[in-house]
């Protein structure tokens, strides 16, 4: 499969551009830490954004780096969310144990579905990913005694984090906790995509036939990426359950799978920071457009998608990169 538009071009890290590229992200991380202090009213929204960034980041590993296009990523998010919620109601409401369990269950779901689905490609994979997510959605919808069905899981409360920090109504604990999880996940994903394993994933994305020819175990590599991505999506789901104290059936829906894909594409897939740019932009646009009429928001999303695919392949970050490159070329002349 040739992919000349969306995938970030295979560029090895350049020594010359270290400056701004390293400092800017660091500043952003530090600035994020200050949100509860300087904009306390926005803390709950910021937590939501952090969780969605984590979810979109997990999808980036598949869509951006491995070239696996899935329409059912919400299945794994929902698996994590429902695991955390159901455990809190029935077993233990320790945040760390439930989050880890959410990750584990999502990874298991990813392993089971992925080991089947990844044997196919193209249309069959798309339909299988849709069907798998649809099945989980229907199961959660029907098992009302466990999942609350259409009403979702309500009144899920969690014990203080590490036994000390309570999930207060201002959402400070929730924010720092989810930001810490996102940071850990980011370090992990960065480590993964810059490892030889990560480069083999890019190779599979660019040309799986050649990778097979040089002896790369494609199926195993893709499955490994899928399971890692599933675990992170599950973590995002569990965090969502913990900070909102609620699990909605929507967390397994096709709409959510579509939303997260749009968020990632908006920022730019295959660039690590795409999720960090795309999610806030998406949420901001949603807030702006969905207030009056949901139709506006559908239209907005649709236009974003058409513009992105027709004119701005590579998302906002891809655009920034192209502008920088053309400026750099002009400067040298």
């Amino acid at each position: 499969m040739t992919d000349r538009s969306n995938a970030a071009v295979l560029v090895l890290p350049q020594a010359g551009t270290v400056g701004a590229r390293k400092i800017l992200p660091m500043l952003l991380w530090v600035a994020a830490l200050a949100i509860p202090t300087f904009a306390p009213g926005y803390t709950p929204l910021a937590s939501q954004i952090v969780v969605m960034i984590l979810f979109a980041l997990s999808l980036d590993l598949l869509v951006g780096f491995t070239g696996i296009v899935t329409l059912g990523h919400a299945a794994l998010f929902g698996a994590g969310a429902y695991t955390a919620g159901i455990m809190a109601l029935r077993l233990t409401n320790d945040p760390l144990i439930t989050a880890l369990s959410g990750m584990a269950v999502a990874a298991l779901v990813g392993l089971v579905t992925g080991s089947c689905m990844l044997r196919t490609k193209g249309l069959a994979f798309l339909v299988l990913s849709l069907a798998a997510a649809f099945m989980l959605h229907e199961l959660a919808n029907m098992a009302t005694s466990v999942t609350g069905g259409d009403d979702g899981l309500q009144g899920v409360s969690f014990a203080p984090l590490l036994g000390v920090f309570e999930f207060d109504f201002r959402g400070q604990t929730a924010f720092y906790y989810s930001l810490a999880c996102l940071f850990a996940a980011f370090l992990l994903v960065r480590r993964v995509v810059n490892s030889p394993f990560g480069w083999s994933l890019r190779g599979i994305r660019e040309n799986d036939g050649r990778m097979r020819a040089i002896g790369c175990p494609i199926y195993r590599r893709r499955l490994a990426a899928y399971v890692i991505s599933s675990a992170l999506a599950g973590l995002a789901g569990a965090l969502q359950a913990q900070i909102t104290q609620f699990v909605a059936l929507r967390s397994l829906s096709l709409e959510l799978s579509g939303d997260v894909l749009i968020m990632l594409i908006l920022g730019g897939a295959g660039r690590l920071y795409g999720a960090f740019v795309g999610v806030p932009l998406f949420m901001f646009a949603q807030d702006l457009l969905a207030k009056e009429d949901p139709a506006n928001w559908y239209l907005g999303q649709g236009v974003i998608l058409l513009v992105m695919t027709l004119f701005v392949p590579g998302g906002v970050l891809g655009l920034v990169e192209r502008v920088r490159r053309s400026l750099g070329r002009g400067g040298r002349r």
Partner: protein
Amino acid sequence: MTAVVTILFFGVAYGMILYLISVGLSVTMGLMGFVNLAHGVFAMLGGYAAVTLMNQLGLSLFAALPLACAMVTVVGFVLERTLYSRLYGRSELDQVLFSMGLILISMALVRVVWGPLAQPVQLPDYLKGQSVVGGIELPTYRFVLVAFGTAVIVALWVIFERTLFGARIRAAVDNRGMAQAIGIDTGRLFAVTFGLGTGLAALGGALGADVLAIAPNYPLHYIVYFMVVVAVGGLGSIRGPFIAALSIGLADTACKYLLPEMGSVFIFAFVFALLLWRPNGITGKR
């Protein structure tokens, strides 16, 4: 006995609608390999056009159907020439995102024009109510639906299997490069096929307006069914999707009737297993 006949009847009617809507998608995907998730949009537009022509302008059902069909064919043709054709040869991801965008835009526009609620179908009096066949009451309109659907399908098969146009499509599906080399204009062929496919989808949407309710979330709500019919039936085929659509129509009806709780889960589990066994569908290569 009554249950069996009822399930068979409703299942066949449902399957025919699914087939009419999905067959165009199968052929166009087989021709150009374009992953078009937005095919349901054309079915929805057909439904809206027909319902509006009947309810607002007072046209009869049999005048509204071809008119709606023609209108949507034009829309499909224009969209193919202006937008779709820009994305041929692009990655699967781009095509998925592009067609998702079309779905969302169509949902928004339809919502603005017709409102968020499902459109009621006002059938003429002679099609309302039930007919009694062999002591079993069945809705009259579904008989018309099945008869009309059968006629269209037979015509479609004749075109596909017996005419030069059909032979060209089959040749291009089999080997596009070779077809081009012997002088078939595949670009034009595809545009015409795309238009025909959207027209059939519109017909399916219009005919099936009381099976699959015409509402703004239509293309998203039923997308799983259309995609499954195409994936299970196999790309570029018109026979495979027929078998797939009928099986899914029957199975879905039977499950809803006998096991309303677990119904759709069984079907999707089955589809899952089937696609693992035959990833290219029942008529595709192993």
